[in-house]
């Protein structure tokens, strides 16, 4: 054990020993989150010995990646004090439009999919940043619009059945030689870039600043609307990208494909310690939040309970986690 590690260790012990467990969790919430994640994993291993192995971990990563990517956009938006309720519709639309354009080739099809995200993000951003509509209402409206348009589009395109290209299938369900899921190869760079941008760049600082006090930012001469516009476009693009991975995993483009991702995308951010009122949090917490939710899902699948019960338990545990978290950080 090196000297530095020892001091850190002794400080942790001192904090815990001194009745400071709560204060430790309060200042280092990520520690609490990781502990919770490990507790969940341990719980699985105790209940079903032998479940947790390399394949299981690799599968968890595979399932967590699309959620992590949607939640990445949600984190960016929530840091500024907003919320994006259109992510699920955008992900579905992106996947569907990509699948119906697969005859053009993989790259153009993917561009079409991401294009959906870009357009919706631009509309969201314009409304919220320039016309000052509340994010909740704006994204609710664009979500409804996207969904409606998609249904109309799907009926027009009846003859041309959506087909998921092999490349997307590999992306959403395949694994590399070492068991590393392909979608992790997409998620990891996104995660690194977002964490770096939030911690090291002026843009990242501005997101926190706007979330803290957007009025003050305006008075300080910051063009808040530009940041918000870019932010909402980024969020929708990430949702669109996640949609492509999701459809790769299920291999069939449906109109309710990504609906189930709306609640987890918000929950992962909240559990991950980002305040819905903005200005506080970060992406590393969201990553752990997404992993916790994925493992939770896996536990509930192992329990082998009927789908409605699973849904109830999932929601109840999210509520408990969010409540505990809100209490802890006050």
């Amino acid at each position, binding site marked *: 054990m090196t000297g530095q590690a020892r001091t850190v260790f002794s400080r942790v012990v001192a904090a815990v020993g001194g009745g400071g467990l709560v204060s430790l969790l309060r200042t280092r919430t990520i520690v609490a989150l990781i502990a919770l994640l490990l507790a969940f994993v341990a719980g699985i291993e105790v209940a079903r010995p032998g479940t947790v192995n390399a394949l299981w971990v690799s599968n968890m990563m595979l399932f967590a990646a699309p959620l992590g990517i949607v939640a990445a956009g949600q984190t960016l938006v929530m840091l500024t004090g907003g*919320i994006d309720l259109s992510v699920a519709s955008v992900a579905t639309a992106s996947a569907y439009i990509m699948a119906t354009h697969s005859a053009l080739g993989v790259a153009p099809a993917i561009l079409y999919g991401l294009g959906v995200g870009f357009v919706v993000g631009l509309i969201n951003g314009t*409304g919220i940043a320039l*016309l*000052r*509509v*509340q994010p*909740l*209402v*704006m994204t*609710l*409206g*664009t*979500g*409804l*619009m*996207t*969904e*409606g*348009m998609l*249904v*109309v589009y799907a*009926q027009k395109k009846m003859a041309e059945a959506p087909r998921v290209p092999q490349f997307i299938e590999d992306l959403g369900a395949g694994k590399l030689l070492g068991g590393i899921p392909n979608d992790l190869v997409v998620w990891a760079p996104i995660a690194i870039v977002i964490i770096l941008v939030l911690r090291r760049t002026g843009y990242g600082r501005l997101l926190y600043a706007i979330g803290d006090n957007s009025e003050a930012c305006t008075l300080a001469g910051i063009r808040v609307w530009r940041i918000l516009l870019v932010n909402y476009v980024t969020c929708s693009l990430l949702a669109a990208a996640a949609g492509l991975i999701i459809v790769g995993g299920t291999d069939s483009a449906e109109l309710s494909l990504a609906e189930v991702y*709306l*609640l987890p995308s*918000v*929950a992962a951010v*909240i559990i991950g310690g980002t305040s*819905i*009122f903005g200005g506080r949090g970060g992406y590393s917490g969201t990553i752990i939040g997404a992993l916790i939710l994925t493992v939770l899902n896996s536990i509930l699948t192992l329990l082998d309970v*009927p*789908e*409605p*019960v*699973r*849904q*109830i338990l*999932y*929601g*109840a545990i*999210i*509520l408990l986690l*969010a*409540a505990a978290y*809100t*209490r802890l950080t006050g």
Partner: protein
Amino acid sequence: MTTPSEAKSSVRASTAASNMRLGPRLRQSLRRYPSLFFMPALLIASLAITVAVHPQFSDFDLQSLAMGALPLAFAAAAQTVVVISGGIDLSIGSAMAVANVLAASTMEKASFGESLLLAAAVLIVGAAIGALNGLIVVLSRIPDVVATLTSGFILGGVALLILEKPGGGAPQEFLNLGAGTLFTSWLPNALVLLVVAVGVIWIPLCRSKLGLQLYAVGSDRIAAFRSGVNIDRTRFVAYIFSGLFSAVGGLGLTMTTGIGAPLAGVYYTLSGLAAVVVGGVSLAGGRGGMVGPVMAAFVLTLIPTDLIFLNIDPNFGQVIQGTLIVAIVMIGGFVEARNRK
């Protein structure tokens, strides 16, 4: 001391004065509640458009309009109470689904009398669901958007648990409460039910101290607190009323569709919120009334109907709904910004 004649003349003068003040007062209330004027106009306009594109508009069309708008109007009413108190409830659709399947699965073989008792039980369950939502929001301090989004998810599971697939039923007399007509075929029961239910629940509420507290908490929480309003209790009560209205909406869904469907409610959360926004209730809280959202529910129901008459894909209705919400909020923000100057 004043003589009787003097007193009489002074009374007359004061009536005259109040008559004179009526003009500016009307204008003032219009400025304060633009939806008071705007919503009836919008409703009449959309009715006129419907009659224009579908000249053979009959009593049957009116009945199907009232039946179509009934659940949505209650969803809007449920949302309105919470939004006025400065909160939001994203679980309304699922709460309606629970009430809907609960009613349809228990009433299938019931007599009319029993079904009325069951309906009362469903209302109690609805209020209990609302109370639970209120407790979660008030006690856990989880932001209301997240808390009700999650509880809506849970309630969706509960609805599926009660009734896996669309089914069930209710006695014909009970269905007639929402599907039949009263006196003439131009007066659908659905309309009567809506007016009576909203009136019986809302009018006493908004006239009471509690109603005033709802508005106070919604418009300025700190000021309300300093005036001695119990904020937590008021928000809690708002959610109870939201649950109650959702349950009425769920019963309305049973009456108008005749069955219970565990997934039917999903649509009503977002559309109900759309009706609230279109109906002139400020999402910032503390402003708006019940008439606007209920009328907006009719307007939103008319849109897809008109599209069908015009031979346009009715699914554009959702697109128009989304556009309408955004446009109205934008116009509202614009007007407010101009008034402030």
